[in-house]
């Protein structure tokens, strides 16, 4: 029984949260839904880890849904890259789910709580589905599941501006998804297939023409919107800042990361690293990345809202990943993955700390937060360490990311790209230190003693665990980089 279940792990990764979400709505009980959320998150993480255990020795797992062999049926395909991203997002999900049990700043009506947790699970099911699938159209379907769920999760924020943010994200997201759909259509037009492996082979065999180039362009725009690539990032800052705190934690570590993963998959798998396309994809990605890593921190520096500031920081950090993807080399892919993981755990810790602070002080206005560090030590020190990680100081995972990234950049022969990367770090240092200065050294603005309240278990526990990971992976990065290297090999081995 167990051994037969092990064969089905790829699909269980997605179907378990889907069905549990339906059960949550069916049961309609807040208590049951919360319990189910935590248990499912645990199960999902365990499944990812077990998949890793299967893929590591055996290589690629292919799972033909419906029993129809690919490319006719839909194929789930698990390799080292897939499990890397799966573990990352499911880890984040578990931490965020526990955190969500705490004091929530959402605006839910009577009876909507179970549905809220169901939407959470649907979001995760969609994201997991996007990761494991090897079918272009299936990516679109699961993208939409996760997107719809995300819109509503954001819209649950207490501030009415959450609705505007969600609406804007919905419009941009729908445009992005339609671009992706169009791109899939064009690819299908050119090749007659939807399976990614098959697509890659057929593009290789038939060569590229204008249809394929257009497909690539629309794909980059569409995924660029979903992963908040610099000129298409408009939705992200408000969405992150007005969403409920736990949702911000979840999104920062999962949604954009999965979009980046899909970008990586498509750009490298389909179009091949060195494919003779007549369009300079690398230049476009690198240009967007540079603008992101330089402009976003400067906006963050002027930001008045704590959450939005870190949201801008996400835009900046995502740019590093895009830069690494744009390099188009194996080392670049590895660097992208390393930063994908490292940024996820750092940002999750940061947003949890921010959430705790906001829940206590009742404000996200930076200028109201003077001297808060003296009464809310735990949250502020986490924020400080997370901030150092965002800057990329040695001893934090951020440094590892930057080291690997800059090494990849140098290896590619574009050593001058190291300069914007480091300048971006410096700009991050500016906004992080601005916060530190206010949290520690600015005179208090609000009656701080009144805002003290003990931390609940579900608040400090996930934060401590994630911080532990941050500290650990700052000092022992070999696991992450080694794995990312294997994943990159799996990817670049496929395309050509």
């Amino acid at each position: 029984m167990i051994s037969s279940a092990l064969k089905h792990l790829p699909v269980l990764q997605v179907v378990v949260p889907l069905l549990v979400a339906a059960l949550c709505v069916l049961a309609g009980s807040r208590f049951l839904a919360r319990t189910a959320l935590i248990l499912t998150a645990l199960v999902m993480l365990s499944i990812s880890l077990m998949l890793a255990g299967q893929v590591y020795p055996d290589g690629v797992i292919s799972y033909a849904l419906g029993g129809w062999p690919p490319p006719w049926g839909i194929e789930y395909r698990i390799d080292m890259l897939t499990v890397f991203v799966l573990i990352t997002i499911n880890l984040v999900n578990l931490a965020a789910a526990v955190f969500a049990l705490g004091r929530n700043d959402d605006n839910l009506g009577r009876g909507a709580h179970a549905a809220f947790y169901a939407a959470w699970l649907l979001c995760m099911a969609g994201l997991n589905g996007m990761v494991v699938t090897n079918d272009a159209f299936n990516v679109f379907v699961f993208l939409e599941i996760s997107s719809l769920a995300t819109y509503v999760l954001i819209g649950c924020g207490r501030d009415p501006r959450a609705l505007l943010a969600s609406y804007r994200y919905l419009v941009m997201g729908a445009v992005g998804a339609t671009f992706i759909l169009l791109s899939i259509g064009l690819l299908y037009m050119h090749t007659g297939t939807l399976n990614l492996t098959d697509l890659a082979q057929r593009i290789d065999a038939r060569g590229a023409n204008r249809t394929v180039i257009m497909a690539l362009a629309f794909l980059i725009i569409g995924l660029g919107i979903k992963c908040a690539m610099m000129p298409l990032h408009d939705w992200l800052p408000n969405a992150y800042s007005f969403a409920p705190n736990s949702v911000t934690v979840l999104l920062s570590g999962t949604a954009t990361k999965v979009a980046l993963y899909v970008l990586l998959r498509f750009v490298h798998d389909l179009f091949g690293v060195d494919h003779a396309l007549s369009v300079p994809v690398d230049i476009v990605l690198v240009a967007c990345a540079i603008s992101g890593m330089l402009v976003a921190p400067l906006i963050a520096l002027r930001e008045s809202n704590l959450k939005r500031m870190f949201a801008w920081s996400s835009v900046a950090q995502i740019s590093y990943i895009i830069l690494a993807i744009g390099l188009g080399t194996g080392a670049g892919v590895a660097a992208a993955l390393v930063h994908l993981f490292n940024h996820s755990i750092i940002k999750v810790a940061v947003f949890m700390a921010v959430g705790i602070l906001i829940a206590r002080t009742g404000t996200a206005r930076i200028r109201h937060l003077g001297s808060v560090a003296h009464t809310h030590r735990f949250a502020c020190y986490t924020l400080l360490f997370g901030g150092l990680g965002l800057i990329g100081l040695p001893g934090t995972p951020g440094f590892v990311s930057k080291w690997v990234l800059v090494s990849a950049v140098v290896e590619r022969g574009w050593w001058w790209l190291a300069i914007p990367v480091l300048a971006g770090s410096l700009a991050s240092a500016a906004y992080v230190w601005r916060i530190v200065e206010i949290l520690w050294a600015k005179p208090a603005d609000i009656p701080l003693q009144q805002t003290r309240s003990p931390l609940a278990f579900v608040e400090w526990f996930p934060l401590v665990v994630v911080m532990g990971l941050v500290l650990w992976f700052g000092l022992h990065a070999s696991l992450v980089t080694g794995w990312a290297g294997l994943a990159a090999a799996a990817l670049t081995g496929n395309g050509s």
Partner: protein
Amino acid sequence: MIPVSAVVLIPLLGAIGIVLARRHVGLRNLVLVLTGIGNLAMVGHIALNLSGYQEVQVLFETLPGLSIAFHVEPLGLVFGLTAGILWPITSIYAVSYLDACRDTHQTRFHALFCVAIGSAMGIAFSENLFTLFLFYEMLTFSTWPLVTHSRTREAVSAGRVYLGVLLASSLLLFLLAIVLVGNYGSGLSFVPGGQLASTSPALVAVLLVLFVFGIGKAAVMPLHRWLPRAMVAPAPVSALLHAVAVVKAGVFSMLKITVYIFGYDLLNVVFLRDILIWFPAATVLVASFIAMRQDDIKARLAYSTVSQLSYIVTGALMANSLALIGSGMHIVMHAFGKITLFFCAGAIMICSGKKYISDMNGLGRSMPWTFGAFFVASLSIAGLPPTGGVWSKWYLALGALELGQVAILGVLMLSSLMNVYYLLAVPLRAFFLPAPQPQARLECRPALIGPLVLTALLSCALFFLSGDLQGLLADLTRRMASP
């Protein structure tokens, strides 16, 4: 055998102990002093058992080729010993100084002080550039709260300049240089002979520029601005950190990198070196000029520090064994001299409330110990016998001659003359000019005077002990000759 990393961990554990003992002032101060003594004992233990510390100790391996590791080598030992000896003395001074100021955040102060010293120790015994950079940044961040200790608007703004200059230079230039070394060189470890033998001369030149201006703590102009601004910090911070730990960490990194990353053979063939050496050389002169015009005693000392640091950087760029000995010795000599001067400045400010030199006429007669110590330390900085300062300047001068740069020799000499003028002027003015009104005896409590007299005496003692120091450093030059 106790591992090398103990010298880093003892201060860090001490910081935790101090935080834990924050409710009991006496216990806290005891922990502080014991940590200092324990740390000194550890450094002393290493110095006495050099043969046992040949191995590299890897604490964490972050990535292959990127590990936090420590080793013992003569330069680091010299720096570590200096900081190790001066720290317990400073602790005693700091406790009495802050008590005299009725400071209310002493726990924070002492804990961060421990972290800063731990970082300095980490720099001293770092085995590779990554470890060095880690502790370099840790030092930057741990000293920021000390600089802004008073939380006044002025202090916070100075803190911004402090952090801004140090972070900008280190993140943009220093880190870039490290990355380039990591990718183009043969490794990040400090090995005699350097890691860049197989790289192109252009890259070596670029790296040299990046290192000289990337290590902002060495305060080569135009990156010196943070140092005078950092003087808003309490006197013990200025004394130990901005005369010993932080700034010496900068010049020490410079020395270590020239010796173990570039290697003197390589450095001597880089054309750009002959141009670049004029930046620190000019700093030596210009900073001395500025120092002469300062009336605020701490500002004058700060510019004097800028000037003296560039002696060491110049020495490092001279790239010969005499200059290396001179630079290594100057780290020590200047540390003992300058810490004395800052102790004195703090004592003067606490006990007489004066901070402008023009107000100090005749003050020497009411504070004889303080100004006596100031006098001795000034001699040491200026490089006059019977203080240790004479030896380091002597070797630096010899190094300049060996390099064939008589002009640089001239610069160093001229600056020394100015040192005499602007430093010795203070005690002379205090002892010999008449006081504006008759003053009572102002001398401070012994706990404040004791440390500064002790360091002044040590400065003199170094005049006689310099042989050992020279031996240690000469050992290094031998090691470099046969890697």
